[in-house]
């Protein structure tokens, strides 16, 4: 496979976007088909590129002019994250009806995400990520101008931070190429910039950030594609940081801080979910909650933790594709998706959470406390999921039975994939080994079980029979009567201090400049003064500059 083929996963969606725009006059369905084809083609290209060589491929097309080269690199990590980002995006572009403009912008955003993931250096990743974030904002505005969307600044900050980290690496180490940065160059300050970029670009924050609010829009077309692409991209940065540090972050307390942040994110999502007034608001918290657990697992700093994070990311990817396809009405699809998100055994989310928590315990020290908090958070999320079953739908979106069936199938896939977790581990071992050393004996030596420090998870032997027994038993069981109509339910608990925090926030927002002082802060008056072209002002500023220059 010639190295130039590494451009294919980026070029194919761009080409599809051009075709979709060009064929728009022939009707939306054609543009939709073209868009779906482009997304699937990018996914297929990544698969083919990797499967034909099964090792890292690199392409360098020379310097771009601002200190970085067009260096593309497809290694195991890039393949894993590419698949995690592209799979749900392709599904959504296939199943959701979109206008040609939305399809075109979505395809360009997908191409930008692939560029960010395939890029061999940090500055190019920042460019790809910033492009994807900008196009996400454009998607939101095309879809519904009045609905809530992330502020443009909030999605730009992380990529500016990453660009800054990249150029700082260039200055201090002479390069921002992932594979060439010396370990000593990854200082705490640079890592802090990378971490800020990762957390903010994916919206992984404990409060109700944009990653939650986008799921409350009337339409979920732009929200789902954005969540499917930007969430993995954020966590991708933290995984690449392991490569920069030769499998470690600069300080171990950074691992602990990030893991704690991840649990706080999951706890925040669970606490809001258990108080959600409608099922749609509950569903808005599921993906961010999983992202919190994924962050906690990835931050632990071991191969098992990283694998657990990848599993949780894969689960969230499938759920991201399922959520917008769910109908409003109560029924098996909503129940299955909620169960899958809550981590009911022996599902993929269950396996990922168990591995992540087990790894945190085995990491020792304060990580054990983080693990206890994580387990408690998991149960709160489970309680919230159970409570959500009887809630009002909260939205007036119609979804066809076919889409509901697809959502249910995706939920079942998450639930049924648990036994395969060890097989997945043996497949992704190479990817994990490219950023951090594997434990002696490997992660999953026999594709049947995963070995942690103190235990072994017999994924296939234990979860397999449980899955079969469960499937048979549930099929033979008698569904309980729908004992209550949808109703508004009281929260399971009030978050301590939440009301006080809201009061303080409202007070701060209500602060204004007293009437008698407003004239001092009248921007219009300042503007009139500045543009008046008065020589007196010019001479005064000349004197001021003279004083400044004489310092």
């Amino acid at each position, binding site marked *: 496979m010639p190295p130039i083929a590494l451009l294919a996963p980026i070029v194919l969606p761009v080409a599809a976007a051009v075709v979709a725009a060009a064929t728009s006059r022939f009707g939306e369905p054609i543009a939709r088909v073209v868009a779906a084809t482009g997304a699937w083609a990018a996914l297929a290209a990544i698969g083919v590129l990797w499967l034909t060589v099964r090792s890292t491929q690199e392409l360098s097309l020379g310097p771009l002019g601002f200190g970085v080269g067009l260096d593309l690199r497809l290694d195991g990590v890039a393949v894993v994250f590419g698949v995690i980002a592209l799979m749900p995006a392709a599904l959504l572009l296939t199943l959701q009806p979109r206008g040609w403009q939305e399809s075109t912008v979505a395809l360009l955003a997908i191409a930008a995400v692939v560029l960010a993931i395939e890029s061999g250096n940090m500055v190019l990743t920042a460019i790809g990520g910033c492009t994807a974030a900008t196009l996400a904002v454009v998607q939101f505005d095309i879809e519904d101008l009045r609905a809530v969307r992330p502020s443009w600044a909030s999605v730009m900050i992380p990529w500016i931070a990453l660009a800054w980290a990249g150029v700082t690496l260039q200055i201090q180490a002479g390069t921002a190429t992932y594979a060439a940065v010396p370990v000593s160059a990854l200082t705490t300050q640079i890592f802090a910039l990378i971490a800020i970029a990762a957390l903010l670009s994916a919206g992984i924050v404990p409060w109700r950030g944009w990653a939650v609010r986008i799921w409350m829009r009337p339409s979920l077309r732009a929200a789902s594609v954005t969540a499917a692409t930007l969430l993995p991209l954020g966590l991708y940065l933290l995984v690449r940081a392991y490569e920069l540090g030769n499998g470690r972050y600069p300080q171990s307390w950074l691992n602990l801080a990030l893991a704690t942040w991840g649990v706080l994110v999951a706890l925040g999502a669970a606490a809001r979910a258990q108080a959600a007034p409608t099922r749609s608001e509950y569903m808005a918290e599921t993906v961010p909650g999983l992202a919190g657990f994924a962050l906690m697992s990835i931050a632990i700093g071991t191969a098992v933790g990283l694998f657990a994070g990848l599993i949780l990311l894969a689960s969230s990817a499938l759920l991201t594709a399922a959520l917008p396809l769910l109908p409003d009405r109560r029924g098996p699809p909503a129940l299955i998706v909620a169960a899958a998100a809550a981590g009911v055994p022996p599902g993929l989310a269950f396996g990922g959470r168990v591995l992540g928590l087990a790894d945190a315990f085995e990491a020792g020290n304060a990580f054990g406390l983080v693990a*206890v908090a994580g387990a408690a958070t998991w149960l709160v999320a489970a309680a919230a999921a*159970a409570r959500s079953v009887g809630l009002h739908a909260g939205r007036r979106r119609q979804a066809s039975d076919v889409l509901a069936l697809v959502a249910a199938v995706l939920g079942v896939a998450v639930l049924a994939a648990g036994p395969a977790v060890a097989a997945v581990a043996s497949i992704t071992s190479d990817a994990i080994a490219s950023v951090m050393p594997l434990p002696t004996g490997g992660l999953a030596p026999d594709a049947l079980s995963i070995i942690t420090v103190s235990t072994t998870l017999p994924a296939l032997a234990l979860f397999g029979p449980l899955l079969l027994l469960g499937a048979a*038993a549930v099929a033979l069981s008698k569904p309980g009567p729908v004992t209550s109509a949808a109703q508004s339910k009281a929260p399971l608990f009030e978050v301590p201090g939440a009301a006080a925090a809201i009061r303080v926030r409202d007070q701060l927002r209500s602060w204004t400049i007293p009437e008698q002082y407003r004239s001092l802060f009248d921007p219009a008056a300042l503007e009139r003064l500045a543009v008046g072209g008065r020589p007196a002002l010019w001479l005064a500023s000349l004197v001021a500059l003279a004083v400044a220059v004489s310092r």
Partner: protein
Amino acid sequence: MTHLFSSAAGDTLSLVVYPGLLTIAVFGLLIEVAWSAVARQAIGRPNFRWRRPPTVQVIVALLVMLAAAQFAAPFNALPSADRNLVIAAIAIGFTAWAELALEPELVARPGLLLVIQGCWLLSVLGPAIEPESLRPQVLGNALVPALLPVKVASGFLYLLCLPALMRLWPMSPPAERRSRPRFNATRAMLWFPYCGLFTTLFFPPPTDDVAGVVRFFGTSVIAALTCVLIGTVLAQRGAERARGLYTRAVAPYSFLLLGLIVATLALTR
């Protein structure tokens, strides 16, 4: 492939027969009868005639058999290295929420239940922090003097939480649809998971012989009877006193335990 089938067969045996579903059913039946007698409730006749079981009971059964398979019970076919405390704790924890999802009318005070479950989870996982191991038998075996205070305090918290988790407290569900007392099969399935986990975590693992079996189940029965005793006392004191106990005593005590765990962690480093 042979290795897969052999290990799958062993795991299935521990899931379905021992210490899995069958053991859970027998143990639960006995203790539930005892509780009914103590609580002066008409037990109702267990209906052994075949009928399609309610989905909620099926889900609970699947969860508890997964949990029971992780116990350090003698002759457990699941290899000791394959057992995981997190799986056991989470599977048991899920049972309450399966009921809330499928039969919400039968769950009393879910909010308070969640708080108590959090305390219980701390008593289960807290002792695992310092040993940095999730193998139940390792935790049961941990008799290092420095860890004993945490272990004892956790065991006490576990027992305090047990009556509420087993719904032996005098809190009535939102809508009891049953006209006459009926055998509570769901609760019966929870006796062994909770009590067996208590035995696994806080007592040294028994040997794989008859004495070991007697010791394991004897300890579990004692834990169950202690739970019944506390439940009876709570029932006599009334709902408000029970609620007060869990909100004003058990929850603060769990924070105390958390402090003890942190202190132990700091001192043993």
